[in-house]
């Protein structure tokens, strides 16, 4: 079993010492640096009252230029939360950590229906006028193309307005 601290090449490992290691919880790595606070918001990490939450951004990365990393002590993501991450940044890597070791690599699967993650881009859509969750149907996964359940407008990933 690989130690969390052994996952990265030495130079990256050194940089990530800025962020504390976790004993048990979740590590989300290779987050595009401009998306990191979207993830903080959708996972409600700013409201986390238990366990350490470490967030770092603008870290140099061989894989994606600049990256962000989030480590959450004592929290394991629900399938719904994993789906949300798959919508926003499908290329992150996620690991579950137990006793300082990677116990599970979480694979990202895009759901067929995306519920209440993004607002509809059409200001005249009923979902922007009534207190209802937004619903999008995934038409194509790559590149992501979705249709609003209500006004039927087509939205691409780069146009997504995260709630």
């Amino acid at each position, binding site marked *: 079993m690989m130690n969390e601290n052994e996952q990265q090449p030495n130079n990256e490992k050194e940089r990530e010492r800025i962020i504390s290691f976790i004993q048990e919880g979740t590590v989300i790595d290779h987050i595009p640096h401009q998306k990191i606070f979207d993830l903080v918001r959708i996972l409600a990490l700013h409201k986390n009252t238990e366990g350490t939450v470490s967030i770092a951004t603008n870290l140099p990365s061989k894989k994606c230029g600049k990256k962000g990393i989030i480590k959450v002590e004592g929290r394991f993501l629900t399938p719904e939360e994993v789906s949300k991450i798959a919508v926003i940044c499908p290329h992150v890597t996620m690991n579950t950590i137990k006793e300082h070791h990677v116990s599970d690599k979480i694979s990202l699967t895009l759901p067929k229906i995306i519920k209440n993650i993004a607002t*509809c881009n*059409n200001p*005249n*859509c*009923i*979902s922007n*006028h*009534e*207190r*209802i969750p937004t619903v999008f149907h995934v038409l194509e996964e790559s590149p992501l193309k979705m249709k*609003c*359940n*209500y*006004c*039927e*407008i*087509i939205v691409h990933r780069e146009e997504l307005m995260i709630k």
Partner: protein
Amino acid sequence: MFLKKDLISVKDLSKEELLFLINTAENMDQEDCSELLRGKILATLFFEPSTRTRLSFESAMKRLGGSVIGFADPKVTSSQKGESLADTIKMIEGYADIIVMRHPIEGSARLAAETAKIPVINGGDGANQHPTQTIVDLFTIKKTQGKLDELHIAMIGDLKFGRTVHSLAIALSHFRVKLYFVSPESLRMPEHILEALRKNNIIFSEHEKLEDVIPLVDIFYVTRIQKERFPDIMEYEKVRNAYIIKKETIQHAKPNMKILHPLPRVNEIHTEVDETPHAYYFQQAHHGVLVRMALLAIMIGNAHQHRNDLI
């Protein structure tokens, strides 16, 4: 039974369902249906003005022996007091057997359908969908040409913003047709509609001049060019008269060519065309009653029992 509880978008309908609806509508003026929906109530919720859709639904329901409640002016409803659409629908479902709704906000019909236990028919939701108009258009094309395949159909005018032409193009992609889109450059058919047509292997061409297509087509579907859609008034001035159809415009048309228009027209079809054998827009509006009778009969009557005989 009709495959779905509600009718919200023409995209929800299969070719078989469209044909079933059209065939049922054809039977509506041949059989005595005056008792079919006795005791049933239609609620017409018109949060936005409408003449043809509301009156043709009311006429359809009354011809089937049913009755109608509703409003044509949202100012008289609780929505003015801040009631949510979902609450309005939950209340109405206890008063009626089926709802027809027009609303200025896109997606409102889908929300109403998800909320209501009774069937909901979309009578137009903002710029989004108006499926019963599309079924009327298909019915009219079939009525005038005797078929829906092997036809050449032109759509003229505001193809960018006109929801009727978007829905009609999508519905026609179930059939073997050739489509001609005639519009100013700034009001061309949106790419997502063209993409959907390509996926269905529908052959289409785009034109700026009416003369290019008039001798070729069986159906001439005209829409109004809306002044308010032009960002530059000079652009509007350039094209405003390009698509006014007069008697001389259609002198080289095929004998079977019919002109359709969802109405209201403003000046895009000159009244002198009304007396030609090509004019069919008023009959098209009359067909609205038969199609809406068929819909009501299928959705809350027992017309579905004949489904297998009709397809």
